[in-house]
């Protein structure tokens, strides 16, 4: 009896999710998504900030941007970066997925969570880690200099950034490739082995071609992420003055002495013009991939492919990648957090200090940032998942126009760079009277986060929802349950674990987010991610290092919990 009540109770608490009136859900979602976008669009056709009296309508902003050679450089750099990192991340991610998913590589269970680490650590933190680890006088560079007389690498050029971005985006490819491999019946691979193909042959001629749609999807995703890259070029592009679109946009805050919102909005619209088609293409590919996946044969249990002599090659590749993408930046940031200064001729032991952390904890702004970051991840994450679920129920198994509308609607925020979305939300909170009192509260930050990550969250939720077989819902329907009751009493209880998993993933994403909060940052709603950007710009490196490490620890705790609860770290 007692067991009964405990298992029912959480469901009862979640029931309001499915009771939310559909029309209202759609309206709120549409407002949350469309108002910032339309504000940006409107701003891009003005000659001054929209709130200034001296504004007038016109195409000046676009004219300025298109006449600015920096814009074209940035555009070109973004393209090169996006292509470069796609070329690196896709093959590497695909091979990694094959090795992890299909072969008898030792220690896989232990390695998998580490593979995903780069996707959960803020790119700001990673990039900063690279600077202190592998920069011209980074820890590793200096050690290499001492040991071998040279440190033959650089991290500030565009190709170097493409390599770093490529390596750190391997997990994005990995999750899609391994999910596709999971749903790909093992029998087609076994058939190839029986026919006499070696593991490598199997991967190249059968497995990877068969998951080509998923790989293509991942390639578009990575390309698209490359186009939006902000933290990495902000930190690594700075020293040699390499601009990409998002850092160009950020630079416009200051280039003319006063903020050029109209120019920034115009650049944002240019970015959206590139990314939105990519988002649509992605959606199209995803549907294709799903259809393709149904060809799969019997997905029975399978004996892992014995790698034999390939084992060490695969292991070496994996460890090398892991060293470059995880160990180097994380160890760099960790070291930097515990020293006062570093570089050539500095003995780290002498420079050891805890002052950096003391400085963080002495400062109410920073302690508040830490607490806020935890709050926005836990409570904010839960609320976000609740919102996503409500939207999910508004569209679940309904094939009317409104569902399609929501389908496209949730994709829009994906295409807007977080930096700009944050700025648009700042405007909304400043100029919409009902929102004004909430501006400096964590709510503003939460709303922006929730909207920016809408597409991601919706995919998590709908994956869970679609795992509930239609028949289970139809069965309830035929015995007379209304749609609302089915949602409440059949679907919701069945996706409970999916929701828990989504919550943890959203927690991780919210912990790592940084660009959305840059403009929204106000006394009272500080979060670590945005605080890092601001501190980095201000050059408070000691604090950046300490806060970064704290951020990594938070993410680490989230990851550990996720693993403890058996959450699959992917959708």
């Amino acid at each position, binding site marked *: 009896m007692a067991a009964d009540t405990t298992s029912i109770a959480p469901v009862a608490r979640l029931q309001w999710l499915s009771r939310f009136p559909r029309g209202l859900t759609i309206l709120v979602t549409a407002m949350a998504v469309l108002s910032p976008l339309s504000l940006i669009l409107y701003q891009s056709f003005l000659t001054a900030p929209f709130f200034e009296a001296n504004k007038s309508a016109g195409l000046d902003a676009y004219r300025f941007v298109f006449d600015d050679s920096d814009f074209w450089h940035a555009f070109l750099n973004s393209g090169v970066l996006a292509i470069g990192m796609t070329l690196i991340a896709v093959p590497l991610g695909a091979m990694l997925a094959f090795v992890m998913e299909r072969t008898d590589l030792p220690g896989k269970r232990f390695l998998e969570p580490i593979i995903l680490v780069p996707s959960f650590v803020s790119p700001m933190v990673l990039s900063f880690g690279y600077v202190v680890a592998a920069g011209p006088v980074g820890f590793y560079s200096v050690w290499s200099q001492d040991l071998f007389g040279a440190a033959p690498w650089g991290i500030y050029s565009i190709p170097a950034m493409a390599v770093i971005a490529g390596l750190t985006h391997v997990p994005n490819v990995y999750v899609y490739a391994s999910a596709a491999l999971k749903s790909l019946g093992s*029998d087609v691979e076994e058939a190839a082995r*029986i026919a006499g193909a070696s593991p490598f042959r199997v991967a190249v001629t*059968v497995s990877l071609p068969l998951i080509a749609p998923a790989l293509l999807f991942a390639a578009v995703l990575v390309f698209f992420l490359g186009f939006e890259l902000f933290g990495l070029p902000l930190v690594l592009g700075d020293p040699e003055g390499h601009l990409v679109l998002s850092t160009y946009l950020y630079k416009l805050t200051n280039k003319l002495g006063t903020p050029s919102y109209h120019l920034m909005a115009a650049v944002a619209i240019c970015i959206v013009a590139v990314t939105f088609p990519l988002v649509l293409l992605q959606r199209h590919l995803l549907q294709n991939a799903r259809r393709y996946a149904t060809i799969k*044969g*019997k997905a029975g249990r399978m004996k892992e492919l014995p790698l034999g002599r390939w084992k060490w090659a695969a292991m070496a590749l994996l460890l090398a990648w892991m060293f470059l993408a995880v160990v180097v930046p994380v160890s760099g940031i960790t070291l930097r957090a515990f020293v006062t200064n570093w570089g050539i001729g500095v003995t780290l032991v002498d420079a050891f200090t805890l002052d950096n952390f003391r400085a963080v904890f002495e400062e109410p702004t920073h302690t508040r940032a830490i607490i806020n970051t935890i709050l926005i991840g836990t409570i904010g994450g839960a609320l976000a998942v609740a919102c996503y679920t409500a939207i999910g129920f508004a569209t679940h198994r309904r094939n009317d126009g409104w569902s399609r509308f929501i389908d496209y609607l949730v994709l829009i925020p994906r295409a807007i760079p977080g930096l700009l979305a944050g700025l648009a939300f700042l405007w909304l909170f400043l100029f919409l009277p009902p929102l004004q009192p909430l501006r400096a509260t964590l709510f503003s930050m939460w709303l922006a986060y929730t909207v920016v990550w809408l597409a991601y969250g919706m995919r998590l939720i709908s994956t869970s929802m679609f795992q509930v077989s239609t028949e289970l819902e139809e069965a309830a329907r035929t015995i007379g349950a209304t749609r609302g009751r089915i949602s409440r009493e059949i679907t919701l209880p069945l996706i409970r674990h999916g929701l828990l998993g989504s919550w943890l993933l959203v927690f991780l994403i919210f912990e790592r987010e940084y660009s959305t909060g840059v403009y929204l940052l106000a006394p009272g709603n500080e979060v670590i991610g945005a605080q890092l950007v601001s501190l980095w710009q201000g050059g408070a490196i000691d604090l950046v290092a300490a806060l970064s490490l704290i951020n990594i620890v938070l993410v680490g705790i989230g990851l550990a919990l996720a693993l403890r609860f058996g959450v699959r770290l992917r959708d």
Partner: protein
Amino acid sequence: MTELTVDDLHLRYGDTPILNGVALTLERGQVVSLLGPSGSGKTTLLRAVAGLESPYQGTIRIGNAAVFDGARGLDVPAERRNLGLVFQSYALWPHKTIFDNVGYGLRLRKVSAADIKTQVTRVLEQLSLGHLGERYPHQLSGGQQQRVALARALVYNPPVILLDEPLSNLDAKLREEARAWLRELIVRLQLSALCVTHDQGEAMAMSDRILLLNNGRIEQQGTPLEMYSDPKTLFAADFMGSNNQLKGEVAEVRDGVAMLGGDGWKLAGVTRPGTTAGKPGVAMIRVERVRVAASAGDNRIAAKLITSMYIGDRFEHLFELANSRIRAYGESALNAGAAYFVELPRDAIWVFPTA
């Protein structure tokens, strides 16, 4: 010549034993079927032979060469065992044409393009697929896909073909045709084949020998005829054919004849190993051997007819007696509710001990 020898094979998934010391041999030109209920380990055994599962004890030899030897730690990977395997799902590669599907094994064996063309064309012809080479798997019917899967396994002349439930993905009518066609092909091409099936009809029709597996052990093996007409255990008897069972107590065992009695009935039948007087036993008889009689007599039991079902080529009668049910076939419908006698001929009854 023996193409395949399996000896004392043990395999487990984690702590669950799946195969507990299985042995079998397959001679050239023979078809051996692995028959058994789901969970009996038959598919696992086939996959172990293919190299897709890892046993921990025993040996597997193909021809004269050992491919697995638990004691020596030898485990030749699947791709170097040179076997042909037809998957239950067919596992055709959806991104390759039929021609490329079939030719893949030859390409891996570094056969020249011209030779690949002739050999693939020949095998496709043999399987009446000649005109389908350029198509993709999803453009073919289920029966055609099954033949492509077979062609793919045959094309490089493996010494042994492994068939995993080859017919189960076809619909009922097609299955019967394919069964005959497959048997004909095996005979015509002199193939040595190991075939997994859960359908006893399929096993009997296609094989020279049947191995009946139960809980990871071989329950009984023999020709289809032996398996059907001379089952050694209750499990074997029950698994083959449609049967009636009557539980009772063994009164007497003498000269290979056992007397079994129950609540108001008494039957004489052929004893099976282990049947002992004074112990509980079970009488087992194939449904087709039960006759309906009008009067009492030896090995006849009074029974009330519950219903007669028309199943196309005959009627199936369902009788109630004491607390059991007896099924029998007949030419015409009988009167439901009326009392009859069912005759269970003495030589058609096997009396098994019950545990």
